[in-house]
């Protein structure tokens, strides 16, 4: 199922946690939600799933608003630990088996085994990573149409993190929609097809990763002396940011890097080259342009 978020706003007191967010998550895709801490990712999930009340806007699932029956096909893994800590793992599995028709208990036990969880243990005796693993093992046995995962790999060691990514890829391959938030840009880069970046409650970037990587580049040129004019290149709508350092100029281009490169050559620039940006660079430019500049220069 797809998700259509339309002008979603949520305030806590006078602070806007989510500010006029509109984004569409297509069906059957893996969608990454990125953003610094406090950007509004968790609040978005809560408003989407009826756990908090939005001040404005709407969210629809396959065109329909949220009703309890939809939760047969929607599974949510929150960021923090919400397991009943006095229950044993096998009792948690049993709880899901009774509550959801599509739940596959044997698959759950298989997944728990992969993560090395003993089903007889009580939830409170598990470490943070193991609790995440339990939540993941149960969630991916739900055969859901939509998975909403808030930091699904937090606390897990790299091997188990890869397991979770693989599970997400598997869900997408069977046609489910996966919406996840993560601070691990590398994971998002691998698994996600589209991303949205939130910063202070607002959407600052959205699109397919491949398209973003094709369009967003740094175009670098060297001019003969320090006093050169860019002939209005900076005014081009496709130019994101211009950094001049002595004779070297680096232009962060949102789209059409080749044309900008030609313009620079026409303006007298030499040694014009186009530098690729990876998702981390793109993300940093979107939320913290100042810090991004230095990193990109050193990295490329």
């Amino acid at each position: 199922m797809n998700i259509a978020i339309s002008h979603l706003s949520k305030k806590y007191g006078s602070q806007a946690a989510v500010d006029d967010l509109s984004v569409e998550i297509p069906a059957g895709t893996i969608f990454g939600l990125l953003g610094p801490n406090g950007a509004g990712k968790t609040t978005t999930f809560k408003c989407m799933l009826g756990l908090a009340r939005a001040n404005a806007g709407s969210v629809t699932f396959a065109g329909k608003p949220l009703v309890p029956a939809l939760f047969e096909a929607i599974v949510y893994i929150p960021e923090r630990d919400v397991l009943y800590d006095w229950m044993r793992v096998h009792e948690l599995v049993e709880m899901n088996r009774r509550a959801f028709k599509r739940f596959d208990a044997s698959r759950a036990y298989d997944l728990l085994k992969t993560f090395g969880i003993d089903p007889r243990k009580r939830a409170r005796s598990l470490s943070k990573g193991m609790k995440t693993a339990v939540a993941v093992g149960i969630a991916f046995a739900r055969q859901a149409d939509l998975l909403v995962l808030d930091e699904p790999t937090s606390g897990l060691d790299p091997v188990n993190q890869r397991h979770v990514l693989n599970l997400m890829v598997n869900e997408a391959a069977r046609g489910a929609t996966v919406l996840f938030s993560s601070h691990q840009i590398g994971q998002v880069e691998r698994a996600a097809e589209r991303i949205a970046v939130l910063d202070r409650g607002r959407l600052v970037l959205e699109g397919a990763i491949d398209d973003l990587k094709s369009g967003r580049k740094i175009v670098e040129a060297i001019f003969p002396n320090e006093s050169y004019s860019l002939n209005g290149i900076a005014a081009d709508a496709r130019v994101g940011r211009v950094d001049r350092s002595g004779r070297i100029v680096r232009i962060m281009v949102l789209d059409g890097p080749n044309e900008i490169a030609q313009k620079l050559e026409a303006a007298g620039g030499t040694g014009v080259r186009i530098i690729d940006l990876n998702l981390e660079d793109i993300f940093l430019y979107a939320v913290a342009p100042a810090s991004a500049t230095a990193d990109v220069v050193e990295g490329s």
Partner: protein
Amino acid sequence: MFYPEWLRVRTTLKVLAIVFGCLFAIAALLRIAFNGQISGTYSWVDQEMNKPGVRVTHERQSDGSMRTTIDDRSRGDHIVIVDRGWQGKTITITGPDVTVSRSHNVQIGSVGVHATRVSPTSNEVQVTTDEPVSARYLLLFASFVALIVATVLAGPLAKENTNHLEIAWTKAIGRERMALGLFGVDALAMLASMALTVIFLVLCTALFEIPHVVVDSATLPVLALTVFLPFAWYALLTACSSSLKRGLGAVIGLGWLAALVVPPIGQALAIAGNPLLHAAGVALSYVSLLDPLVYMHFSGSAAPGDSTATFGDTFSLLASPPLLRAAILLALTVIYSSLSLLQWRRLEA
């Protein structure tokens, strides 16, 4: 769907069963230890038997019972004891030493006994040990146990609020059905605990002699009263806590304290001379009407203004018949439960 609550209930009832089991075992041991001895109330029979100049005969009857005759010629008392073993004893006392007051409290010499039959013309009283027990005493005790169970299980919404709403509110049923389901499971638990208690009491009695529980027309209203009391108490504690994300224990503790303390304080202040204190007392007394615990008492004759009622002078409501009080408790249960639902509906995770 409500599996965690079932697990909680199962644990609670298990503990209750174990406690009852231990108590029953102790009772059984006592029964074996004191086998054959006549119970304390009838130690005076022992005394009579051992007085000098008293003639005692024992005859085994054809139905297996033992008939003992005690003749005290000097005082003119004649005592016949028929011991039917587990089916109890019947003691018939005839003689001038017998004085009967109202409500069948009999003085035999210096001893007071509760008689089951009195014929004043022949100065004869009859005492049976297999006296029937009115069901309402069993139900009263059961209600008390259910109050404890209600306290243990109360505030299921508050328990979900501490960290589990992401699970409770992402099931295929809405919040209201979720809450009602939890309430239903707990209600069944309270009923089960009452049944367990009654069974336990009957079994304990059966250790000593055949249990004789009398169920009469008064039982049904009392049943309603004793069932709705823990329900209303549970609902009150739940309503006070369903918006809280922590502090359920404090609410329960304070709830008990307030429920036990406010009504008597209100009553005491209400008869004070000082107009300010009097007003406060009246106000507190009205507030006390919200407290389910004040509705629990036996006003046997059920007449308004009955002095056995705690607030008989202030509120005839509280002295009303059990059925009416049960209806009030039911209403309180529904109101408090609705308040809980309304709060939970508005809450955010």
